[in-house]
């Protein structure tokens, strides 16, 4: 088993900026970046009324199911998905095998524009994830795990 996935403040900021730019450039309603196991990482745009936690977990489940289908069909991963709604459409892409980029958009944008902007944004995000992985591997980032004591864990579960 490998160690935990991590995100450091510097790269989080870079990724947040990429999300904001993608939101603007793609005329999107909202942009969400989700960890491959369904944890929300970053967001931009109109997310106020969205249950981001639930959306993230369902999207990760959806991507995992699609990955399962691709395996059965002996196809390489389906790297993107598109769901067409009446008012809101959803574009889902894998970012460097590490995260899932979700763009919610409506009639103010188009699938073509979203696809075009997503390509550049996901390349930039993948670079940020590479940086995170390098830092984590070389122990350059902070580490909360080494600070946690058994007493801290016990205290969490004391009624």
């Amino acid at each position: 088993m490998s160690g935990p996935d991590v995100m450091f403040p510097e790269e989080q900021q870079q990724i947040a900026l990429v999300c904001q730019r993608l939101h603007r450039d793609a005329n999107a309603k909202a942009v969400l970046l989700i960890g491959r196991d369904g944890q929300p990482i970053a967001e931009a745009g109109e997310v106020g009324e969205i249950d981001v936690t639930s959306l993230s977990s369902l999207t990760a489940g959806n991507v995992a199911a699609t990955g399962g289908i691709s395996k059965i069909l002996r196809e390489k991963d389906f790297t993107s998905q598109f769901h067409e709604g009446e008012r809101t459409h959803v574009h889902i892409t894998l970012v460097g095998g590490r995260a899932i980029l979700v763009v919610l958009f409506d009639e103010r944008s188009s699938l073509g524009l979203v696809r075009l902007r997503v390509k550049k944004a996901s390349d930039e995000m993948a670079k940020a994830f590479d940086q995170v992985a390098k830092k984590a591997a070389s122990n350059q980032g902070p580490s909360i795990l080494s600070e946690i004591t058994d007493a801290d864990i016990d205290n969490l579960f004391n009624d």
Partner: protein
Amino acid sequence: MSFINYSSREINCKLVYYGPGLCGKTTNLQFIYAKTSPEAKGKMISLATETERTLFFDFLPLSLGEIRGFKTRFHLYTVPGQVFYDASRKLILKGVDGVVFVADSQIERMEANIESLENLRWNLQDQGYNLDKLPYVVQYNKRDLPNIAPLEELRELLNPTKVPDFEACATTGIGVFETLKAVAKAVLTELKKGS
């Protein structure tokens, strides 16, 4: 796989409730959801069939408090117990940090328990995990029913490695939080060990 965000100061972990069909995995989550304060939980999602059998998974996000200024968030999932949903079960185990095996204590479900436990072992192996190295607890559910197997027999058959185990009645909540606490604690301890 656990996810630590140093920017939002969060530790996220994934727990999976596994077990045969109708053993009470969803009922465990429903009880936790009902008894947790609104600020500590998110929405519970159930992807179920029309007859309320789990089709893909149930999902419940929970906050368990802070450790050294980091919020600990646990994402609880159940798998569909019915035999033919095996492909879905495998997918839900992806990135798992801790497992609860929920056994049905009724004598007539013993074979289903054993089959499901073997299936858990295989499916974990398929994802690159070893059940013996993963934070893992066992829950013997439905202890309130009349036709149940003795605890010692359940232990012998379903918990040969002697991991923490709990008697439960998920409909009334007996043993539900004890099980959750034990697996969550084991996950955090394992995470710390790996640092």
